[in-house]
C-alpha cells in the first residue's frame, strides 16, 4: 500500500514539475520529487523505497509521454532502495544521528542509482565514459543529491510529528 501511494505520489509530483511546468525553484533543478522514494525507503524499508522509485518513474514517464526506459526506472528504484537499507538504523526521525545517516543514504542511493542508469547508456547508446559522466551522471547526481539532502530531513521531522501524534 505504501509503495503504491509512494509510486503514485512520485509520478504526480514529477509530472507536475516536468510537464505542468511549475516554474519552481528558479531553474535549480527539475525533479524535487526524487526525495519521495528516498523518504519512503527511510520510513517503510527498502522494498517500498525501491518500488516507489521504480514504479513511480515508469508512471511519471507514462504521464509525461517520455516512453519506457527500464534502466532509468531501475536507477530510480535504487535511489529508494539504498535509503531503505538504512531504515533499520533509524528509529527516531528527528534525532541528529538519524538525519545524518539518512543524508549518507541519499548520497549513496543517488550515486549507485544514477550511476547504474548512466552507465547503462554505454551499453544502450554506445556512449563513452566522458559522455556518461558529464552528460548523464553528473547533472542527475548533483541535482538529485541537492534535492535529497535539503528536503529529506524536513520530511523526516514532519513524519516524526505524525508518528508521535498517532502513536505509530
Amino acid at each position, binding site marked *: *500500500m505504501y509503495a503504491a501511494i509512494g509510486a503514485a505520489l512520485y509520478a504526480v509530483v514529477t*509530472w507536475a514539475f516536468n510537464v505542468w511546468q511549475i516554474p519552481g525553484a528558479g531553474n535549480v533543478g527539475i525533479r524535487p520529487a526524487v526525495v519521495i522514494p528516498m523518504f519512503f525507503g527511510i520510513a517503510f524499508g527498502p522494498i517500498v523505497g525501491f518500488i516507489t522509485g521504480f*514504479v513511480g518513474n515508469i508512471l511519471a514517464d*507514462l504521464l509525461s509521454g517520455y516512453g519506457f526506459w527500464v534502466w532509468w526506472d531501475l536507477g530510480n528504484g535504487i535511489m529508494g532502495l539504498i535509503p531503505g537499507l538504512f531504515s533499520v538504523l533509524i528509529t527516531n526521525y528527528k534525532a541528529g544521528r538519524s538525519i545524518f545517516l539518512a543524508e549518507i543514504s541519499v548520497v549513496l542511493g543517488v550515486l549507485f542509482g544514477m550511476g547504474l542508469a548512466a552507465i547503462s547508456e554505454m551499453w544502450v547508446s554506445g556512449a563513452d565514459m566522458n*559522455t556518461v559522466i558529464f*552528460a548523464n551522471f553528473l547533472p542527475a547526481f548533483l541535482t538529485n543529491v*541537492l534535492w535529497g539532502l535539503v528536503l529529506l530531513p524536513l520530511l523526516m521531522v514532519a513524519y516524526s510529528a505524525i508518528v508521535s501524534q*498517532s502513536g505509530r
Partner: protein
Amino acid sequence: MLVTWNYRYRNSLIDHIDPRARFIFSFAVLLAATSTWNPLLLAIIFVISIAWYSSAKLSWQDTKRGWLMISILLFTMIVVNTIITGGGAGGVVPEGGQLVWPEGFNLFGRHMTFGLTVERLWFAVAQLMRILSISLVFIMIPYTMDSRAYGVTFRKLGLPDRLAYTMELSFRFIPTLARNFQVTLDAQRARGFELDSVKGGILSKVRRIAPLIIPVTMNAIVSSEDIANAMDLRGFGQQKRTWLYELKYQWWDYAVIAFAVVLLGVIVYLAYGHGMRLFEVPQWWYGLFS
C-alpha cells in the same frame, strides 16, 4: 490539476496486439540493437522499428514531447560528442582515420580545419540508427497501451504479484493525489507562498519547495493507512489474485513473439558467430569522401 493519460484507442495494428507480445518485441529489439555495431544489422533493426512504430498510427502532435527529449539526447551524444569533439566515438572507432576535409575549408572568409573523420561520421550514422531503433519501440508505449493493462501485463510476464498490484493500485491513486497536490498548492499560494519567486540562493530556492512537498506527502501517507486497513479487513493477499482486465493471446500475438525471438536469435548469431559485432565502415562510404 487534470491528469490525462496519453493513451487513446486508434484502431491501429498495434492496438490489436497483446501487451505482453509488445513488451517481448520491444525488449528483443533492445537486445538486438545493443548486441552489434554492424551498420547492416543496425539498418535492418532500424527498418523493422520504423515499421513497428508506423503501425501504431501515432501523430507528431501526440508524441512531440517524447521526441523533444530524444532529440536532446541525440544532439548531445551524436552532434556534440561524436561529430564535434570525437569523444563519443572513443573505444568503438579506431584512432586516426581519413579526414572529411583534409585540406580544411573556408567559412565566412576564414580558413578552418576540423578533425572530423569519415569513420567518425559513419559511427554517428550507426549510433543514430541504434538509438532511434530503441527509441521508436519504447517511446510509443505510453500512447498505445491502455493504463488498465500494465499491472496484469507485468504479472503475466512473471513479475511478482505484489509489484504488479502496486502498479495497478498506483494508477488508481494518481487522479486523487493530483487533486490533493493542486488543492495544497492553491492553499499555500493563498497563504502567500511564493513558489515562482526567483529571489535567494540555490538552497533557499530548494527549501521553497518544502511547503508543497511536505503536506502532500504526509497527507498521502495518512490516507494510505486507512486504505491499507480497509484492504486488510477484506482479506487482501489471502488468495491468488484475479484481474479485472484479462489478457488473451491470439495467433498473431504468437507470430509477433516468434518474429521477435527469431530476430534476436539471428542478430546475436550473426554478431557473435560471424564476426558482425564490431564497428566497420563500408567501402562505398569512403568513396563518397574521396
